[in-house]
């Protein structure tokens, strides 16, 4: 019997599907328009098309793997659930105070208007109980008072409940008891406990993370349910998995219960796809560069593994959840350029024209100059481009918009446009430096993988700033994410806070904790019928010098522990600290958290192979276009990416167009098409 695996990526414009024959590993792709009102319609259209192309029966699809931005969007648009919050007495305002932090410079407060907390203060109640830092019960839970507090939330029309008590990371019994009481007093509400979502120290971070979980939970659960229902119509009960922020896969049920782990699901799909594609091209060390309309995401990949971070930021909400360490800068195609009268400096961003009205050239009423307008004025984005396959770009509108900036700067329109591109590149360069040079990593040892709507337009210039070669431009950004979704592995992790100096820890005890955590983590995969033989377990520890606030995460081998003991781990920590921060100390090291990560097996997929060519890309040429480089207009050949063949060599300046993105190869650079259809840009020898 045939069996298929389906990767689905829902983007703003397109929905991409990737169907993999599990037996042979062959893959077929399809691209259809997204249907924002009900994304599952687009998904079904994509499935129909991809099955048609593959000659497959949808009923043979056994696994559906999906990256989603529903959780992210719920936070960005403020459309999540109304959350009730239960805290320990004295801590009702934990989110209102939010660690007292005011962003910005000195006197930044004069401009700062704080946004409303994710759980409204009027929906927050206190219960009488207290647990100590070591987990002992100081004051027992006053159940009568707790019931009353919970009942008072009935009138508040809350749709989800978070329970987050002080020191619950050390002892969750009061939270568990409150969940039982809530089931009686507020029946039917989804309840999230801080001691389950993120049993780690720091009350504000644990509370906001658990509240964020409650906030997105109803919308994610509904979405997952809808998708399953739709899939059930055409398929035979496929297994649905959702891509987590950390690049692993979660079962649909786990995704619904702990959706805070999905906030970076979208970007993680891109990074996972980039890892896979670049791996095919022979590159394991990457800087990924995903430039979209409003922001740009960059990430570091070492030896084929994305760097992870114990923190996820969406909009102005930062939660403690593992995610691919994607750094975002508020710079994208829609970033608006302006020249403040006072300083006559050129500023790009942080404001963005977004998708609506969008850049001036969209002709949807925007009249402020954006990065996309600058690209159009410079000829980098040919006026003949049909964004999303249909939208015509208005060059005159772009020139007029950029003209306002040019006048402020006393420059020509093209010079001003080049300035806008330089400034936005500089911002993205800073973000790329942050994940490379600032971590003691030399970007010249890394390839730059570019995707997103605008990434391939700016990548060549950024690689020149970084010295990171080659630039790898995979085919279609949406397909890339679908590859990411389809090729990642099932994953679960469990963690525990230990908080003990190395000097007070026995290696054997640490090994025991590791084993307990591994058993707990494996259960989720057992439930997915992944045989233990196919599960791989790894461990991580968070370490710091006693007194430090920030943690460094180290991978931990059980074997390393058995042979070298904790001392070996400590030495590795010192070396990493020195690499990152230029110094190590001789003060006591402290083990804060231990995590076990259990993963299933990877899927084998045969990559797409481009038609072999003769090295001459002339067959794909569509015409010529002047591009403004180094202060002059120079002719650039415009190519159709669909007609490029393997081994084609493209000399810059050149433009390569495809349906959902455009690549720019600068003069003095060469783009080579590899066997898999990627374009690899390097400086001309």
């Amino acid at each position, binding site marked *: 019997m045939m069996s298929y695996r389906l990767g689905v990526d829902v983007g703003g414009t397109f929905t991409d599907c990737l169907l993999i024959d599990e037996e042979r590993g062959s893959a077929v792709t399809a691209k259809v328009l997204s249907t924002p009102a009900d994304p599952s319609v687009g998904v079904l259209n994509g499935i129909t098309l991809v099955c048609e192309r593959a000659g497959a029966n949808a009923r043979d699809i056994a696994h559906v793997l999906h990256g989603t931005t529903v959780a992210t969007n719920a936070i960005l648009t403020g459309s999540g659930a109304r959350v009730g919050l239960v805290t320990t007495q004295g801590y009702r305002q934990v989110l209102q105070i939010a660690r007292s932090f005011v962003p910005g410079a000195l006197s930044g407060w004069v401009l700062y208007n704080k946004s409303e907390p994710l759980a409204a203060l009027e929906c927050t109640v206190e219960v009488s109980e207290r647990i100590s830092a070591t987990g002992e019960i100081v004051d027992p839970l006053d159940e009568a008072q707790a019931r009353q507090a919970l009942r008072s939330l009935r009138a508040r029309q809350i749709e989800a409940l978070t329970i987050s008590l002080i*020191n619950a990371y050390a002892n969750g019994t009061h939270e568990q008891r409150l969940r039982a009481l809530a089931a009686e007093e507020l029946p039917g509400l989804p309840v999230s406990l801080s001691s389950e979502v993120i049993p780690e120290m720091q009350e*504000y971070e644990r509370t906001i993370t658990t509240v964020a979980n409650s906030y997105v939970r109803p919308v994610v659960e509904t979405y997952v349910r809808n998708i399953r229902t739709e899939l059930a119509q055409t398929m035979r009960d496929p297994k649905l998995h959702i891509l987590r922020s950390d690049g692993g896969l979660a079962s649909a049920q786990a995704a619904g219960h702990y959706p805070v782990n999905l906030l970076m699901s979208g970007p993680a799909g891109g990074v996972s796809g980039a890892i896979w594609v670049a791996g095919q091209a022979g590159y394991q060390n990457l800087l990924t560069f995903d430039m979209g309309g409003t922001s740009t995401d960059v990430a570091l990949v070492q030896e084929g593994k994305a760097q992870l971070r114990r923190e996820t930021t969406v909009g102005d909400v930062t939660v403690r959840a593992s995610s691919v360490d994607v750094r975002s800068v508020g710079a994208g195609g829609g970033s608006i350029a302006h020249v403040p009268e006072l300083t*006559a400096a050129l500023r790009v961003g942080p404001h963005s024209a977004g998708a609506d009205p969008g850049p001036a050239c969209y002709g949807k009423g925007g009249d402020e100059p954006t990065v996309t307008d600058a690209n159009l004025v410079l000829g980098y984005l040919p006026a003949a481009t049909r964004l999303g396959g249909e939208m015509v770009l208005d060059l005159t509108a772009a020139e007029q918009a950029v003209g306002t900036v040019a006048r402020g700067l006393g420059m020509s329109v093209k010079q001003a446009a080049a300035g806008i591109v330089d400034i936005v590149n500089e911002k993205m360069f800073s973000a790329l430096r942050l994940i490379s040079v600032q971590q003691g990593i030399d970007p010249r040892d890394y390839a730059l993988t570019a995707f997103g709507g605008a990434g391939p337009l700016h990548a060549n210039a950024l690689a020149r700033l970084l010295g990171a070669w080659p630039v790898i431009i995979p085919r279609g950004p949406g397909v890339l994410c679908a590859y990411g979704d389809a090729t990642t592995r099932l994953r679960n992790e469990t963690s525990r806070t230990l908080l003990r100096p190395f000097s007070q820890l026995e290696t054997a005890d640490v090994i025991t904790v590791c084993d307990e955590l591994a058993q707990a983590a494996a259960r989720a995969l057992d439930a997915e019928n992944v045989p233990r033989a196919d599960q791989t377990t790894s461990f991580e520890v968070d370490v710091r010098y006693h007194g430090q606030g920030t943690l460094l995460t180290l991978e931990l081998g059980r074997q390393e522990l058995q042979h070298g003991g904790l001392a070996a781990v400590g030495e590795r920590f010192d070396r990493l600290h020195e690499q990152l921060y230029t110094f190590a100390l001789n003060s006591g090291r402290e083990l804060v958290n231990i995590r076990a990560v259990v993963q299933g097996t990877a899927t084998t997929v045969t990559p797409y192979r481009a038609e072999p060519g003769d090295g001459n890309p002339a067959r794909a040429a569509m015409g010529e276009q002047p591009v403004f480089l180094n202060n002059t207009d120079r002719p650039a050949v415009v190519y159709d990416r669909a007609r490029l063949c393997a081994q084609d060599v493209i000399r810059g300046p050149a433009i390569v167009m495809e349906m959902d993105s455009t690549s720019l190869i600068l003069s003095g650079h060469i783009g080579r098409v590899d066997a898999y259809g990627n374009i690899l840009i390097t400086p001309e020898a």
Partner: protein
Amino acid sequence: MPATIIETNPQAHTPLPRVPVDPITLDLIENGLVAAREQMDALLFRTAMSPIIRDQRDGFPVITSRDGKLLAGQFGSPVHGFTERYDGTIEEGDIFLTSDPYECDGAISHANDWLVCMPVFKNGRLINWSAMFGHMADIGGKVPGSIPTDSEQIFEEGICIPPVKIFSKGVLQEEILRVILHNCRIPEWNRGDFHSIVAACRMAASRCVEMAERFGEAVYVSALHDLLDRNRRAMQKLISETITEEKRYFEDYICDDGMGMGPYKIACSLWREGERIVFDFGDTDPQSVGAINFLLSEQMFRMFCGQFMINFFDPQILLNDGFFDLVDVRIPEGCLLKPLKPAALSSRTHALARIFDVLSGLLGQSNPDYMCAAGFSDSPHLMYSGYDKDGDWFLLFQIGFGGIPGKPGGDGPDGHSLWPKFMNVPNEFIESYFPVRIECYETIPDSGGPGLHRGGNAMNVGYRFLAPGVVSIHDDRWLTYPWGVRGGLPGGRSTKIIERTDGRRELLPSKCDRVRVEVGDKLLFKTWGGGGWGNPLERPAHTVATDVDRGLVTREGAKRYGVVLRDDLSVDEPATTVLRAELARQRGPAELFDFGGDIAELKARCKQETGFDPPQPPTFAAWVRARQGQTQVVSHVNGRQPVSASTEAEYTGGIPLPEPRAK
């Protein structure tokens, strides 16, 4: 004798030619400096040891030009004062350390701040300086935390490091460091924090060198000049458009000196003369015989002023020294803001922060855009030290937060920091490292000044002590109010109460040392709120109702907005209309400022409202008066008495205090 700078490049003494820099390159270099400064912060906060730097983020970076002009940073360049006084050579690989405010023109303001300065060389030529200071949790001296409230000389305030070469040609001078650390109570924190600061300076240095490499030395250095010029042009325009030639005057106060005297006046006049503005602190009180003196660096004040003004117009600008000749700052020697060595400085935090209220009060009179209420202009300290159950000595150092002022753009946040980047230390962290339980961490209803834009609420933090020890407190605004503006009312004042295990409640003065606490004692540390902005009777009634529903304002407190609420907290429209009309009549036309009464009135009500006798008028050292050309000579250390604590009247900060919650 000024320092000798040794540059190995024979061309170094010929300045690099000033070449034209295109505006885009200029913006790129500005961005590069912004990024370097941010990365200095990031590196320090990530690696520092002491909670005060790590979480509360009391550390500040600076990048300057070759000649010490500040290019990036918020606290004024330390380089000039330091190179003037350092008597030695400055070579590539050298790094300097000082903690003596008097040796660097007040670039740092007390000896707890360790300032690291690093000259940046490229090809044997000095191109920049990077510098950073951080607040050390303890530097020895007479009290844990090294910030005595009762010191009379800086020598009582712990070890004071003159400018020394702590790295010589790249090599750490271990013995100097050993001498210094030997004088500190928690040397491992100082050592860790020191290395973090050095690492941050080195990181900035390499960013400067990289930029010079990338753009070419001449272009890079010319761009630095251009950035200075650009700031000057911008500030010139801002000054001429927003500051009038008419003389404005404003005064504010430090409530007391911790020795029973006060309040102390900080007074400033502001006017414009052509393109320059003058800040004249001539009417400020003389230096205190106690520790509330603040050595205000003119450089730093210019920076505060520029930052405050420009924030409204181009917040992305990287503010630098370029405009400094446009701002004339006059501070007489021997006054509270320019004390003479060896005057004590350890309680300088109050005047340092009160400067911001003065600035906003002055600038606001010239231009309504700048008009913010008084806010949480302080960083109150709590220090709790003792021996834990294992016999290990501990020191908890906390900075308190409070109400951000009501401002033109909206309400002031509740329980926030007026200082950039500061954060609280997580209470769970404190509870796992110190023998204390934090039983409440909340804001105080009604403590924010009512206004169209409400001032932020003060904080109430309840510390239950689990080991015997001693407590020190530094706070202010217990007597004077955080004032409101344009019809806004003042915010609530600060109080400190200790509840003993036998049920006694003791008021603590706002500045005190060595208060003994026993196991089970509880300290309620209440800070102050932000003043209100605009007429509270115009605040939408439903917004007030929401504040009440959220517990940020009480039902009774809503009446100060003229809002009457029913039992279900819905707005009683008819009653509200009547009350608002009545209050409008009573209050009459709004004054620009509402101080909650003048000093004489506040002192007259002091005992009744605060439980404390009013402080005695300050007396000043005879020589200080003489030096200032004043005829009135008052004898030294007269009338200094400890403030007597009262247990009878509950100090309410001028607002009704909620009943203590039943435990």
